[in-house]
Every structure is written in C-alpha cells, then in structure tokens.
C-alpha cells in the first residue's frame, strides 16, 4: 500500500454562524483517485478550497506528504504541489491558450521558463486535445475548450495532488467519454486526484473510493459502489421521504 499523500484531520470552516465544513477527516494515498461527493451545499467546494489554500480552516489541520499546509497562503500551497481547476471555469481572458498553460508551469513546483516552458505547455495542450490551438485567444474559445485549457494549466504545475472541481460538468455524452478517459490516463500516470463531481457515471467508472459529505459533515468514506448504495448517502441525496 502506498504512502499517505494528503491527510485532513478535524478540518472545520465557519462563516459567521454557518459551519460549512464540520470537523471532517480523511486521507488520500499517493496515486489514488477519489471522488468527493454530496448534495449541493454540502461543503464539498469549501473542502476543496481548504485543501487548495484558497481558504484557511477555522480549526483542524491539513498535511501534504507530512508537511502542514493549512494556514499557508494560497501561493505557498500551490508551490507545495497542489493544483486545481475551478467550478466556474477561470481562464486568463487577455491571453492565448498557450500563455494560459504556461502560467501554470512558470511559478509552481517545476518553475520552467523560456522555450522549455513553451514546449511543455504545447505538449500539454496536445494532451488535452487542443493541438494546434496554441495561439487562439482563450476568450474566443468554447466553454469546453476553456475547461481543457484550465486542466492543462493545472497539469503544467506538475502537481503532487490535482483537485478537479466539477470538471466534467456541462460536457455532452461524447465529450464526457473523452473527459473520463483523460482523467483516468492522468491518474494512471501516478497523479493523485481528488474530484468533486455530480456526474455519477463518472464517479462509478473513475473513482476507487468516495468521500461523501452532507451539511458539512462526512457521512461516508469507502469503495465507490458500496458508498453509493449506503442508505445514509441515498437519503442525503434524495431526502428522507424517498429513503
């Protein structure tokens, strides 16, 4: 069994009186691909924001490969080796596709610059299916292509841990298939991934393990098939009446 890459212990985030994440703990081992799921408003994205350093936890601790990262500024978390995509795609609108991807390569762990960053970014664009689109302005790209650029940017950082926030949402069936294969390939290369996702087919095919949250609390953690059959999880998604 491989080593623990990220460990979240008793993480809590309160916004005033609202507790968005309530003492959640879980671990992810190196090379795992886990799904972080739960109904809307259950605190998944807040959890992701805690891991990526966008937010600091009110209490609790998050460690990456044994080093504490909770409480560090976002950029230090990024440099420690965590990269992410955003729920609502965030590209750099004034730049071209390749510049967007280079942004990921220049400042994070591998700190490439010059022709090497350029070549690396071009390679990654090809990887996500945007070969030959290097110089297109991202503002003129479709939503799907912008998502691809965003994924390439996250990969450009050569992250130890990749966070995907509903990256598969909004894709049509054939795009979804391509997307699922892409995520699987990335994981098979040994990249650890946590994905927040609502597309259950993708969760079933991709994730070995799932962590389920509801109202800020972790309600289940285990093999995807088992977790999705858990009555508590079904109740959380569908409400009490249907359980």
């Amino acid at each position: 069994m491989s080593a623990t890459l990220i460990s979240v212990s008793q993480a809590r985030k309160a916004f005033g009186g609202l507790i968005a994440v309530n003492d959640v703990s879980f671990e992810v081992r190196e090379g795992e691909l886990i799904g972080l799921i739960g109904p809307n408003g259950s605190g998944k994205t807040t959890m992701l924001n805690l891991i990526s350093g966008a937010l600091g936890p009110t209490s609790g601790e998050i460690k990456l490969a044994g080093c504490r990262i909770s409480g560090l500024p976002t950029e230090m978390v990024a440099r420690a080796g965590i990269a992410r995509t955003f729920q609502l795609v965030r590209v750099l609108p004034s730049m071209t596709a390749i510049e967007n991807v280079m942004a990921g390569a220049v400042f994070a762990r591998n700190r490439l610059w010059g022709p090497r960053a350029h070549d690396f970014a071009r390679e990654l664009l090809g990887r996500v299916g945007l070969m030959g689109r290097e110089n297109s302005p991202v503002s003129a790209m479709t939503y799907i292509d912008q998502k691809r650029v965003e994924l390439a940017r996250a990969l450009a950082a050569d992250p130890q841990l990749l966070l995907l926030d509903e990256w598969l949402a909004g894709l049509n069936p054939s795009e979804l298939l391509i997307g699922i294969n892409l995520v699987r390939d990335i994981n098979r290369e040994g990249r650890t991934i946590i994905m927040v996702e609502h597309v259950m087919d993708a969760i079933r095919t991709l994730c070995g393990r799932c962590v389920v949250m509801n109202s800020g609390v972790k309600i289940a953690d285990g093999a995807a098939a088992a977790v999705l059959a858990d009555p508590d999880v079904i109740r959380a998604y569908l409400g009490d009446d249907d359980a």
Partner: protein
Amino acid sequence: MMGLHRNEMVVAAFGLAAVALLSLLPLVSEGFALSLGVNLMLYAAMCTAWALFSGPTRLVSLASAAFFGVGTYSVALGLDSLPFGALLLVAALSSAALAGLVGAATLRLSGVYFVIFSLGLAELIRQIVAWSQSRFAHKMGLYVFTDLTERDLYWMLLALTSLVFVVGWLINRSRLGFALRIIGDDETVARHVGIATARTKIILFMISGAFIGIAGAISAPRYAYIEPQAAFNPMISFQVVIIALLGGTRRLWGPLVGVVPFIILMEFITSRFPNHSSVVVGVAFLAIVYLLPDGVTGLLERLRDRILRRAEPGVSSTTRNEIGEKAA
C-alpha cells in the same frame, strides 16, 4: 518572450534613433524651448514609470508627488556631503523604501485602500517635512546650488526615460512581467498557480517609485530653493495619472503619446489662465473616463482591429494612414 525577435530589433533601432535625435535638442535650442523640453522629458520618465506599475495592476497610484518630493529632498539634504550621482542612488533607494512601506500596508488589501492611501501620501510627507524643518532647523526651505545646466538635466532625464524603457521591456519579458499580466487578468488564478501576488505588486511599486524618485532628484537643481510646497506639489501626481491614462497604459510607449499634448496644454493654461488649471485637470479626468477609457493608443488599436477585420489580408500603408486620419 524568448530571444530577440526581428521586430524587436526594429523597435530597438527606432528607439535608439529617437534617443539620438532627442539628445540633439539642447544643441539647437535653449531658453523656453529647452525648458519645455526638460518638462516634457521629466513627465515622459515619470509617466512611463507610473504605468510600469499602474498599467498591469490597474491600481491608480496618486503617490507620484511623494516619490518626486522624496527624490528632491534627497538631493537638497545631501548635496554638501555626497556627489550628485550618489544622491540619485539615495533618491532611488529612499523612494523605493517609501513605496515598499506603502505597499506593505495597503497592497495586501483591496485596491481602494491603496488609492486612498496614495491620495494623501504627498500631503502627509509635506506636513511632516515642514513640521520637522520648522521644529529642528528653524527654516522653511533648503538651497540647492549646483553647476548643472538645463542642458545637463535634459540629458539626464532623457537617459532616465531610456532606462525606464529598458527596464520596462526587461520586466515584460521576465517572470515578473508574466506574473503581473496574470494578476491583472485574475488574481485568484494568479495565487493558485503559485504567484505571491502582494509581493509581486510591492516589488513593482518599488521599482516604479524609485524611478519617480530619481526624476525628482534630477529636478532638484531647477528649483534652486526647495520648499515642501513645491517639492510635494500634489498636482504632479494628478498630471502623471492624466498623461499616462490619456496615452494609454497597455503598451510601454503608451504614456509617451499623452505627454506632449497635455504638457503643452498645461503650459498654455498656466500662463494664460492661471486660475483655471483645476478645472482643466477635472475636465481632463472626465474626458478620459468617458471618451478615452483605454487612452489614445487603446483607441488606435481598436480602430486598427476594426479595419483589419474589414480588410482581412494584411495591413497596407493606406489603411495605416486611415487610422491616423480617424484619430486626428
């Protein structure tokens, strides 16, 4: 971004030719024309330096007068003990230090705080300088006697402007410049790709402030007698902002476009209608916001894009002329 491209060489050659040509001015003219030339060159340096920071970050700094004054006072206070060249360095360092302090206090927070803080900064330092002068030195101002002529000052300012350009160009092709473009686009993304956004902004503000400080130091000999009111004149800050925005801050050379028309306008106003300068500054700000939000260069670029889209293949010399006519 990588290596020298062909058109970069062309631009560099044009730049060198322009500098060479401009450096001839003091040889062919003196008096009023030279004095106007010094003024133009002063604002060319300051506005380009201002835009180094405020262009990509879109944070309006109103602190130029503070850096200018700090530079001026560096010379006035140190003239007896240090050579002029060393004083320029002192001016740069003390302005950069001031910028660093201001940046550290405000640039980690929302942009409005920075603008407000910079708005009163020159006045704050003026008050402190005036107070400490009357309290400890019992006098209002300081004499600055040098053997530097207007000509020397002009050449120094020309050299400074060129230096700002070279530094600006180097920043643009460096990691720092790339980081700034990312910050200007989306600060959240910038942090998530590993950019220390506050530190990046502070470093750039210090570079920009240092250049404005040097400009102030070079201007010190022009005053002969330096008082806080003149050295920390808030009008300097406002004119710098107007000129840079009038020219446009998206290109390094954008602010230059604003220097000549506005300085000549202000010279005209202050000599003919000395009481109207506030009104003119006010109207200039409003005109920029409502009529030229991207400055003259932004307008030209938009016109060029529109024409390019209409006449797809290449830009001929005739379309270039059309652009010029429409802008005129």
